[in-house]
């Protein structure tokens, strides 16, 4: 019996009742690794992040290009940042749905019984999903470029814009993770999430110039954090500038994490 060696008595063990930050980070990375392994095992999970950017980008460009900007070509600099933000945020809903499905499995019981950071199974899953956002971001830009989109600022700022979107979507995914933890079924997570998501992404400057909207709607659209994020991406891609809109988007992201991460962990612990 080599694997089961004589055990150390409890009195001789170094026991701590708190989890250090370094352990929390290490646990999160391990959990993210688990998430990536799962994606590797079931690559069909990536269908949505591969196909959705292609379909939506082509569809929106052809539908609205003529009406809004006169032709498809001149609509692309407006649309691509908008559709990028919308697609990637939509993708983050799946995080909540999958978390719900995952939590119903027996392995979560083991995670709860292990002396690890309570937040790790959640933060790890969310971190692994940034891979999904990265795929969606890359494909959106590629489709745009194939259709004739030429961001004036060049490669560097476009990558920066992509990273900004990924970071913000990761933050927003905490909202859906919260729904994922409190909901009873995976299906209802999707339901609630889209109810929040549609007004948030469409009542923004993502697809249509704000000045064409009714006044009352404009006042909402102008404070909508999604609008700020879209503007920040356009600024980066067109003029390589990172201004107030970018900071507002990042501050919004930080605020979402500050509110929803503790809420989600608390709800998760209570379910335990």
């Amino acid at each position, binding site marked *: *019996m080599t694997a089961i060696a004589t055990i150390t008595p*409890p009195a001789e063990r170094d026991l701590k009742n*708190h989890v250090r930050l370094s352990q929390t980070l290490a646990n999160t990375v391990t959990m993210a690794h688990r998430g990536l392994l799962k994606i590797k095992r079931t690559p069909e999970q990536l269908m949505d992040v591969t196909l959705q950017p292609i379909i939506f980008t082509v569809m929106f460009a052809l539908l609205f290009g003529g009406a809004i900007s006169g032709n498809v070509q001149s609509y692309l600099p407006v649309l691509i940042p908008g559709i990028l933000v919308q697609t990637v945020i939509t993708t983050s809903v799946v995080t909540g749905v999958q978390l719900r499905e995952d939590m119903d499995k027996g392995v979560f019981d083991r995670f709860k*019984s292990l002396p690890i950071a309570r937040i790790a199974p959640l933060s790890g899953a969310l971190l692994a999903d940034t891979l999904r956002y990265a795929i969606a971001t890359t494909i959106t830009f590629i489709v745009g470029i194939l259709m004739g989109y030429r961001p004036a600022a060049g490669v560097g700022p476009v990558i920066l814009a992509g990273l900004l979107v990924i970071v913000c979507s990761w933050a927003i995914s905490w909202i859906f993770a919260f729904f994922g933890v409190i909901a009873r079924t995976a299906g209802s997570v999707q339901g609630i999430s889209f109810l929040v998501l549609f007004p948030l992404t469409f009542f923004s400057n993502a697809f249509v110039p704000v000045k064409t909207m009714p006044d009352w709607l404009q006042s909402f659209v102008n404070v909508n954090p999604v609008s700020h994020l879209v503007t920040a991406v356009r600024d980066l891609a067109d003029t390589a500038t990172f201004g107030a809109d970018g900071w507002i988007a990042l501050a919004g992201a930080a605020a979402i994490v500050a509110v929803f991460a503790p809420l989600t962990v608390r709800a998760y612990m209570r379910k335990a």
Partner: protein
Amino acid sequence: MTRSSEWAVEAHGLVKTFGDNRAVDGVDLTVRAGAVYGVLGPNGAGKTTTISMLATLLKPDAGEAFIFGHDIRKEQQVVRQLIGVTAQFASVDETLSANENLMIFSRLLGLSGSEAKRKTAELLEEFGLTEAAKRPLKKFSGGMRRRLDLAASLIAQPPLIFLDEPTTGLDPRTRAQMWDTIRRLVATGSTVLLTTQYLDEADQLADRIAVIDRGRVVAEGTADELKASVGESSLQLRLADPADLEDARRAIRTVLGVDAVASPEGSRITAPMRSADTVTDLFVTLREAGIHLSEMSVQKPTLDEVFLTLTGHGVDDDTADRASADEGEKVAA
């Protein structure tokens, strides 16, 4: 706060309520360090809920419990460093391979990359899973899954291991293998708290047994003590005429000196049988009293008898319970 560490588990008055259902209704348990302790009871008796509370998976509504002297409510993270939990339904990641599962749990428990690799290889070898290590778990048999689950609980070499129905649903050969593993585990100095529905299993493995029913501990002792309370074996009689029931029970009390339990339909009697010799006297007495038997048999004690004797009701599900209560009234009337 550190209490005496002579006890691996010390629980007093644990209560857990789900809605109207008091799943655990004041359970007391004390398990000596280094022992194998069996919690015996039917489905829904509160075994899993009790274990979940002791393993910090559920918060008790009332009562207190200590694992090696550490409070399960105040020192959860310490308790988690001292326990390994193997749940009734394998708590492993279905989408991953056995190898990946053990690697991830090892890394989570703070082993370095190379330590985790070594530990994983050792455990796979120990539990006979090396060949299947890279296959997805979906193709694993129930026994393989349980073995992997147990392996995962042993990574940190915890001094206390909870095994929730470790052999339920396994075939006899796999069950024997599991028993063997549990015995070797104990030889290394681990304390094991296992739940089971089978008296036989508790008998084979456990030093002490608690019988739990409807969220309460109804009896506690060694396997021998428990069996003694229901007789080494039990005598089952079926009466030709159910009307003779009370006379027959009186005869049993006089001759064997024990109380017989009547079955719900009133024609079958079960009595603990301490000595086969005295049964002859009973049969003579019954014939002299003109009580005729339609059937007689001798049975080794089963969980059913332990239950019948300790609680006055069987291990049947709720509907059967209600039916027997109704029947009981009819008999009394």
